[in-house]
């Protein structure tokens, strides 16, 4: 669409740097096709598990001052069902997000996608509200290393690890992933958080603790991208609170080669992708940047 804003996240080529984040509108091929047409550079699916999951009862997603809390509980129709559903896909760049506890979970799921067009896999090592998967995996660098090794062996397409803030040093999760040959890192997932209603004196989410997303986490996410890109030579996809082109550029300057957008859909809906893309494009023109790569990480030089 707009020239100049194509980007390479390691081996992953994107026409546009603005991706849909995992778990956001991510269960239908038709919706993916629409968002791609409306400007998203790639679409990350809802994190898939071996079996279908119902997720937690509602309330699973609520607003808080300036952001959102969710504990959806990784509801998803399962990898096999999902693979079949997207199998007609020819042209939409879909990144399949996977969640599991042991290497076999992941390799099993990858098998389901054997004959399906997939741009890359994203391993969700950072969901903050489901036991035995997500952050509980990400917090264990040894396990991460094993999983990434097996997944890299099993997958014919690039593999991304999605990290977040857990109860251990997320930079060790990045290190383990890099050591095991990961192709890129997505940072960050939601941050563990909760809200209590003072009238009923109850936690509002049915799972009580969920993940904070949106504007509130942006400065935390920018810091993580900056830290990862300062310490590791690995392509990064920035995620967390991005809702404008300025936000996207902030992540790129701190070291991201692409960005993912989630919560901003609420306020800006599907127009958010082209709005950000056009903003980046105009910014690049004004500042004399030829390509996204020219901007990546330049905030680090100061």
């Amino acid at each position, binding site marked *: 669409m707009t020239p100049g804003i194509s980007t390479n996240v390691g081996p992953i080529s994107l026409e546009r740097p603005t991706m849909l984040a995992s778990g956001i509108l991510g269960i239908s091929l038709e919706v993916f096709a629409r968002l791609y047409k409306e400007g998203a550079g790639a679409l990350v699916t809802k994190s898939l598990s071996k079996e279908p999951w119902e997720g937690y009862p509602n309330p699973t997603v609520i607003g808080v001052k300036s952001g959102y809390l*969710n504990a959806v509980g990784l509801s998803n129709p*399962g990898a096999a069902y999902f693979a079949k*559903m997207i199998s007609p896909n020819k042209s939409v760049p879909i990144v399949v997000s996977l969640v599991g506890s042991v290497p076999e979970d992941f390799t099993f799921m990858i098998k389901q996608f054997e004959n399906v067009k997939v741009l890359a896999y994203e391993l969700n090592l950072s969901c903050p509200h489901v036991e035995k998967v997500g952050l509980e995996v990400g917090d264990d660098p040894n396990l991460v290393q094993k999983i990434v090794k097996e997944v890299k062996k099993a997958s014919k397409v690039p593999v991304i690890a999605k990290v977040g803030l857990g109860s251990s040093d997320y930079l060790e999760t990045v290190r383990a992933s890099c050591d095991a040959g990961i192709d890129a890192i997505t940072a960050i997932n939601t941050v563990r958080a909760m809200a209590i209603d003072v009238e009923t004196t109850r936690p*509002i989410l049915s799972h009580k603790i969920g993940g904070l997303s949106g504007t509130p986490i942006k400065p935390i996410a920018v810091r993580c991208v900056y830290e990862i890109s300062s310490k590791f030579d690995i392509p990064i996809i920035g995620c967390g609170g991005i809702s404008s082109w300025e936000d996207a550029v902030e992540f790129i300057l701190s070291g991201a080669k692409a960005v993912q957008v989630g919560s901003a859909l609420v306020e800006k809906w599907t127009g958010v992708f082209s709005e950000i893309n056009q903003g980046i494009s105009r910014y690049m023109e004004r500042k004399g940047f030829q390509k996204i790569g020219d901007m990546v990480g330049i905030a680090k030089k100061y």
Partner: protein
Amino acid sequence: MIWLESQRNTNSVKVVTIEKVIDETPTVRTLVFSDEFLSKVLPGQFAMVWIPGVNELPMSVMISQEKSKAAFTVRKHGLASTALYSVKPGDQIGVRGPYGNSFTIKQGKLLLVGGGTGLVPLMRLATFLQKTDDVTVIMGSKTKQEVFFEGLANDILKQNKHVVLVVTEDGTYGESGLVTDAMQRLLKENTFDAVYTCGPEKMMRKIVQFAAEKKIYVEASIERMMKCGMGLCGSCCFGEVLACKDGTVFDGQYLLTNKEFGYTHRSKSGIMENY
């Protein structure tokens, strides 16, 4: 912080206290509470309703007939709706929203076709119509006991030229048969400037088809599994659109291109199921 009502963060849960409970039928109740904000929403918009300790459900915003008050009309069904149905005055529930788009207000000869709690947004719509409109309401239910809103509809439309047609499947009250039968019959002798419908999706599909055949403008309000209500989770996807954000109201022209309409919807895990 005291939010001015106009600044209210529509996505945050606001707790309200039930003030009045009205029995509409043995399985349907209307719950009235004070909420300036929700009292003013457009017809077709819905709220996410938290039943503390139980669940959260999408509910059309009902009219309350009292200033600054809002209401929901709920049919008891599964666990969550039964819990909501069972609240007493003084109990607290949480609301967030309004969400979704709304019916397009047309003028002239209008037909509203509702089944069960699908009547809720149609009642709200009726309060937005011009006094000069000629309004026909078809309301369907299984049996006499389950008929509700007949009096309310007549009351809302009392200054209009209007007909309220009740249809029961077992013929125990009003006309016998299905709302679709009644509509087909009406269409033989009448034309309409617009048709609005809400209710079971198979019913709505027929209504949209009938209207389309006669080239009448038609809108239907769609239900899907809703978790967030605000366009994040994707659970309400309906073809390439999201029911909570692009809808819940769609026009007939679009609906007839949507392969799911009247046939399939998704479960909590996102698996497609047939109606």
